[in-house]
Every structure is written in structure tokens, then in C-alpha cells.
């Protein structure tokens, strides 16, 4: 199924928020409503505001009138397995948002431009381009099918009118060029208007073709294919700050590529043991430092992070820094290793910190301190007593991603039941929100959710046993400079934002 712009279910309601929102510990927001509702009373009339982003992200701003914009960009009724979104990524300006799915498709959304007539529509994303990035392949040598699922998309910084992105499945990385065409040449000599060749004998005059405007067409072309360099499954790609190289990481190896060269790559990390029977650890994620083109980190299934300097040696098997938190003996269990396995690692925009996601927590590390993280945030600690069951149904192996906001002050990650969590590093406040059609009206304020861990369940709380573990938010993205987030829930992409009127 190719998603046409007309097929997108794009709804634009507006609701007005009546009533302040007040966090349990913070001070109440200034009242702006007619009814004077107090905390906990929500009346949906027209325009709803988002309290979470308001309180967490923009304390100083006037929170009276903010808008929320829910964009339901894929309709649930079209849902097939191939539509499951597997990666989400904003480009460097935030103008474009790319998603990859299990069917090997990439869909790029573009932010609506601001216009005088429809000011409130700014910030909404529309389909810009859709293309099939990867197809299923068959490895004849191994008799194995190679999945076309897009594991990661990474944008290149824009250097001309075209956009470039890298997309990868388990084995092959591709560089795509996305460009606009709004003119076409007319008046060929050797071809007629329909493109058929003319008999040269009938040509008596020559003319110069002219460029005439046409309807905007966005085309995506594969410019490079980087194949046959990974024996194991690629889990990460990362563009270097030199914009000339990038790396791709699989379970056991990391390769460094030059964008111009597709028939060779440098192997910079190799943790494959000589005897595979001794394998106890795999690479789970890798990323380049945002400013230092010689530095990168990679995480492992044992909960460790290694920082490597490519200037030290060609093969970075010996790390420059080794980040590991000692195990907490009181929390030790058979599943300690599994839940310590890092599923995502991200440098802060500043380059001073790295954030890691393991099964139950998000940790922030200072690059200068290897012994332990400087901050640890509990994502869903109520699952700690359920690890047996989660091991049974394999949920314990789910790989959640994590993201920084543009100013590195807030971090976000997903959870189950279509919940996602935000942590403000400065105020230490956190919030749980839900991305689901049933529970959030478009332009509605996202109501903070709460999971009840035991004892009496309050109204609006959800008990741990009622959580739907099939609804997991694995992929999220944060606009590089604004408070706009993209949350992928199975085949649905939610875009939330806050905006001052």
C-alpha cells in the first residue's frame, strides 16, 4: 500500500481548555477559564491544551493558551503488519520527519508552512514523499530471507536544495536523495510532446527547449547502496560530524564508510570471538559524537558503554572509556543481565552527556565519569516484579529508544500500553502520557496517566495487570529546536506539540 496524500487521515479539531492544570507538587497555572475549574476537572469544549509540555518545558512562558495538535497520519483501518513503524527521525531543521516501516517503505512528512490565513495549522505535518527503500531479499548462499524492515533512518545535513537520508535494513544501507521538481523542459527536437521519437527526416527546424513550470513532484532516488559488509544484523547507523563518513553497526562489528565509496568500508570495531562458543556479548547501539569526528560510543547487551577514539588505532577494539554501573545487589535476579542490556544510546546535543536506555530505566552519563551515571530515571519500575512473565512472553527483550529535546533539558522514552514518559532533568519532574486514538481527542490536552502499583486504585489510574503489553512505544523523536514530538504506536504516528497562541 502506497500512502497517497489523499489517503492520510488528517484531522484538525480544536478544543478549548477550561481550567488550570496543576502538578501535584508544582504551583497552579494561571487561570484562564470561564468555569474556574480546579485541578483534576477537565471539560472538553473546544480547544485543549497540553499541560505536560507546558509545565515541563516552558515554565516561564504563559501557559494560558496553548494548543495541542494531534495528527493521525495513518488510519488504523489500513493496518497491516507491513505498516508497523520501525523508525522515526526528524531532519536537522525539523522541517522533515521520516518514518520507516516493516514493509521497507519510507514516508517523509513536511511541516506545513506558516500562512496568514491558517496560522494555527503551522506545525502540522503532511506527507511529502513516499518510496520503497528496501525490498525483501533472499540470500541464496545461506538460504535465508533478508527482511526489508527499515531499522534506522538518519538524515544528512542539508547542503543544497535536495535532502539526503540514510536508511538501512538488516544488511544493506542506502543513501537516498529526495528532491523536488517543479519545472520540466518542453520543446524537444527529437521527441514530440508525448515523448515519442520523431522521424529525423521530418525535422526541418531546430528550437531550444524551454523550462516550463509543472506541478510539484517530489522524487526519491537511491544514490548509493552500501551492501555486503555486514554478516550480522545492522542495528545502528550514525552520520559523522565531518559529513563525509558514517558508521554502521551490527551485532558484532562496526564499519566506517565514506559516502562516496560503496565497495569498501573500514572495520573499526570487531567483538566477534575467535570461537563463537565464547560469545557472551553483542553490540546493541552505536553513535558518533555530535562534534568530535574521531569519537564514537557503542553499547552492549551487558549494559556497558564504550567510548572509542579512532585516532588511537585503526581497529578500536580497545576503548578509551568504559562506562558501567555496578550491579545493585538488592535487585539481583536471573534477569539482571537481560534488563541491563542497553537498547539505545544517544549523545546529548551538547556532546557532554550520553543517555542510555535499558529495560527499566533511562540513564544519563557524564562523559567524564565512567563509574556510574549521573542520573537514573525509572521508566516503569512496577514491571520489576513481573520480570518472570515478561521473560516468558519475550517482552523483556523489547528494545525501547530514547531521545533528548533540543536543549538537552528533557528526555523522553516509550513504555507499554501506548504510554510514553518524559523526564525533566532540571526540575526532576516526570509525566506519563498516552498515544492512543481512544484516549486522546485531536487537539486535546494529553492527560497525564498513572499506573497503580498496588492497593487501592484511584479513578483514572490503570493497574499494572491491565496494561496492554502488545501496545509498545519503541520509537519516538523530538524536533531539534521546538517542542514537537513524534511518537510511533504500531502503525500510527502521533505528532504532539505545544504552541503559544
Amino acid at each position, binding site marked *: 500500500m502506497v500512502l497517497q496524500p489523499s489517503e492520510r487521515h488528517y484531522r484538525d479539531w480544536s478544543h478549548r481548555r477550561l481550567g488550570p492544570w496543576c502538578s501535584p507538587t508544582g504551583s497552579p497555572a494561571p487561570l484562564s477559564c470561564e468555569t474556574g475549574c480546579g485541578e483534576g476537572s477537565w471539560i472538553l469544549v473546544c480547544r485543549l491544551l497540553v499541560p505536560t509540555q507546558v509545565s515541563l518545558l516552558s515554565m516561564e512562558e504563559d501557559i494560558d493558551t496553548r494548543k495541542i495538535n494531534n495528527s493521525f497520519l495513518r488510519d488504523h483501518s489500513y493496518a497491516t503488519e507491513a505498516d508497523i513503524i520501525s523508525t522515526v527521525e526528524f531532519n536537522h531543521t525539523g522541517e522533515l520527519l521520516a518514518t520507516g516501516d516493516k514493509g521497507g517503505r519510507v514516508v517523509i512528512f513536511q511541516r506545513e508552512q506558516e500562512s496568514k490565513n491558517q496560522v494555527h495549522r503551522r506545525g502540522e505535518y503532511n506527507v511529502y514523499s513516499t518510496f520503497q527503500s528496501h525490498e525483501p531479499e533472499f*540470500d541464496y*548462499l*545461506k*538460504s*535465508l*530471507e533478508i527482511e526489508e524492515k527499515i531499522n534506522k533512518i538518519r538524515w544528512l545535513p542539508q547542503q543544497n536544495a535536495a535532502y539526503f537520508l540514510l536508511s538501512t535494513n538488516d544488511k544493506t544501507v542506502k543513501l537516498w536523495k529526495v528532491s523536488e521538481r517543479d519545472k520540466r523542459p518542453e520543446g524537444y527536437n527529437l521527441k514530440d510532446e508525448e515523448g515519442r521519437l520523431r522521424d529525423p527526416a521530418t525535422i526541418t527546424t531546430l528550437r531550444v527547449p524551454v523550462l516550463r513550470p509543472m506541478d510539484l513532484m517530489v522524487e526519491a532516488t537511491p544514490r548509493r547502496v552500501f551492501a*555486503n*559488509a*555486514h*554478516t*550480522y*544484523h545492522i542495528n545502528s547507523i550514525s552520520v559523522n560530524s565531518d559529513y563525509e563518513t558514517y558508521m554502521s553497526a551490527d*551485532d*558484532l562489528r562496526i564499519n566506517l564508510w565514506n559516502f562516496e565509496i560503496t565497495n*569498501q*568500508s573500514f572495520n573499526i570495531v570487531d567483538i566477534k570471538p575467535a*570461537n*563463537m*562458543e*565464547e*560469545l*557472551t*556479548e*553483542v553490540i*546493541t547501539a552505536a553513535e558518533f559524537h555530535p562534534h568530535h569526528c574521531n569519537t564514537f560510543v557503542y553499547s552492549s*547487551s551487558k549494559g556497558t558503554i564504550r567510548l572509542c577514539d579512532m585516532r588511537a588505532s585503526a581497529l578500536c577494539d580497545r576503548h578509551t572509556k568504559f562506562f558501567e554501573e555496578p550491579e545493585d545487589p*538488592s*535487585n*539481583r*535476579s*536471573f*534477569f539482571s*543481565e*537481560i534488563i541491563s*542490556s542497553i537498547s539505545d544510546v544517544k549523545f546529548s546535543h551538547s556532546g557532554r552527556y550520553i543517555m542510555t536506555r535499558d529495560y527499566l530505566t533511562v540513564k544519563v552519563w557524564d562523559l567524564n565519569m565512567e563509574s556510574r551515571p549521573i542520573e537514573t530515571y525509572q521508566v516503569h519500575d512496577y514491571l520489576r*516484579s*513481573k520480570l*518472570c*512473565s515478561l*521473560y*516468558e*512472553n*519475550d517482552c523483556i*527483550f523489547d528494545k525501547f529508544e530514547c531521545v533528548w529535546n533540543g536543549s538537552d533539558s528533557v528526555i523522553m522514552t516509550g513504555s507499554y500500553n501506548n504510554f510514553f514518559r518524559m523526564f525533566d532533568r532540571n526540575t526532576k519532574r516526570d509525566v506519563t502520557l498516552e498515544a492512543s486514538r481512544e484516549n486522546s481527542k485531536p487537539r486535546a490536552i494529553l492527560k497525564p496517566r498513572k499506573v497503580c502499583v498496588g492497593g487501592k486504585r484511584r479513578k483514572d489510574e490503570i493497574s499494572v495487570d491491565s496494561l496492554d503489553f502488545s501496545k509498545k512505544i519503541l520509537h519516538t523523536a523530538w524536533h531539534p529546536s521546538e517542542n514537537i514530538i513524534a511518537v510511533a504506536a504500531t502503525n500510527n504516528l502521533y505528532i504532539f506539540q505545544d504552541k503559544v497562541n
Partner: protein
Amino acid sequence: MMLSKGLKRKREEEEVEEEKEALAVDTWWLDPGHPAVAQAPPAVASSSLFDLSVLKLHHSLRQSEPDLRHLVLVVNTLRRIQASMAPTAALPPVPSPPAAPGVADSLLASSDAALSASMASLLEDLSHIEGLSQAPQPLADEGPPGRPIGGAPPSLGTLDLLGPATSCLLDDGLEGLFEDIDTSMYDSELWAPDSEGLKPVPEDGSGKAEAPELDEAELDYLMDVLVGTQALERPSGPGR
């Protein structure tokens, strides 16, 4: 003693019935009334966890291209469980539930001989099935070697089978290309149950034993061994 044994058998029967299907959330061990419930799974849970982990391992290996991370994590967890199930006490401390320390201890004590014997035969069986090299491999460095036997840990060998053929022409030339091809994959019945006729090509001369056919009967037997309802007999191994 009898009561706890009966309890154990009942749980494992449940698991045998469900086999490889996604198991429904089984919350018996979360029952706060159960004496063995604690922060860490007690010894009673370990054998069920062990069974579960073995099933997961087999299921993972049956994939055409196993998820290496999943496999490694299951294997490491299996090692931990094996280590904790060993009779000797020199193990990473599994905190006994404060409510019923006696239960865990007595279970450990009573299941000593039977458990270690069944473990020994299980590991032997698994090592035959996985087509391991005959030379016993040392247990991985981390964790004290709790098992009484020196047999190859079953799961370790499976990873060797994953040394995949590489189509990567960046490796050391044509010879390296063929050297890396691990065609024992095609011989192991776990990967291709129909390829019984294929002869193995020893790719690096390590002389791995070929895997005998692992059909449903073998798997059932394995489960019986685990459950302990069958005498500890070796299968008339059709090893070649």
C-alpha cells in the same frame, strides 16, 4: 517434601503442554501467598525457568536467522540458572525468601543427586543435539563453575553453528570466503529437518559432531528427562 515435589511436577506439566507457544502470563510465582515468592526467583522457580530458557533457546535456534542478541541473553540467563541449580553452594547468592528459607534449602538438599544427574544427562543430550565439538569446553569465565560435570555447556556450542557464511567479499579473499562458510548449519536438523542426506563439510577442521535428527520424539524425550518422569537413559544416539 512430597508436597513440594508434586507442586513442581504440576507446574512443569503445564509448561510441557504449552510448549513453544507464547505462554499465557503465568502468575503463580507472583502469588503473594506462595511461600517461595521473593524478589529473586527461588530455587523452586529455577527449574521452571530453566525449562523455559531451554525452550526459548531451541525456539531461537530454529529461526532461520536467529536474533543474536536474544540468543546471547537467553544463553547467559540459562548459565545463571544452571549455576544456581548446582548442588554446591558456592554460587552467586540467590536471596532466599525471608518467609520460607527452609523450603528453598530443603529443596536444594533433596534434589541434589537427582537434579545433578538429570542435568548431566540433559547437557550431554543437548550437546549431541547441538552438534558440538567432542572436546569438552570450559565453562565461560564469569560465574563460579557450579556444575559438577565437565561436559560442554549445551548452549555454548550452538553459537558456533552461527558462524555464518559470509558473502562479504571484503574478507580475506576467496579462500577466506570458503573458510568462513559454515555448512554444518545445513546438517543440523534444527535448521533444516529435511536435509538428512547432506554430508558435512568441515570448514575449519574442528570436526564437530553431526547433529542427529531432532524430531518430535526426541523433543518429547528431552522434556521427559527434564520433568524427571523417565529413567535417565541415553537415547540410542543415531550419531554418525
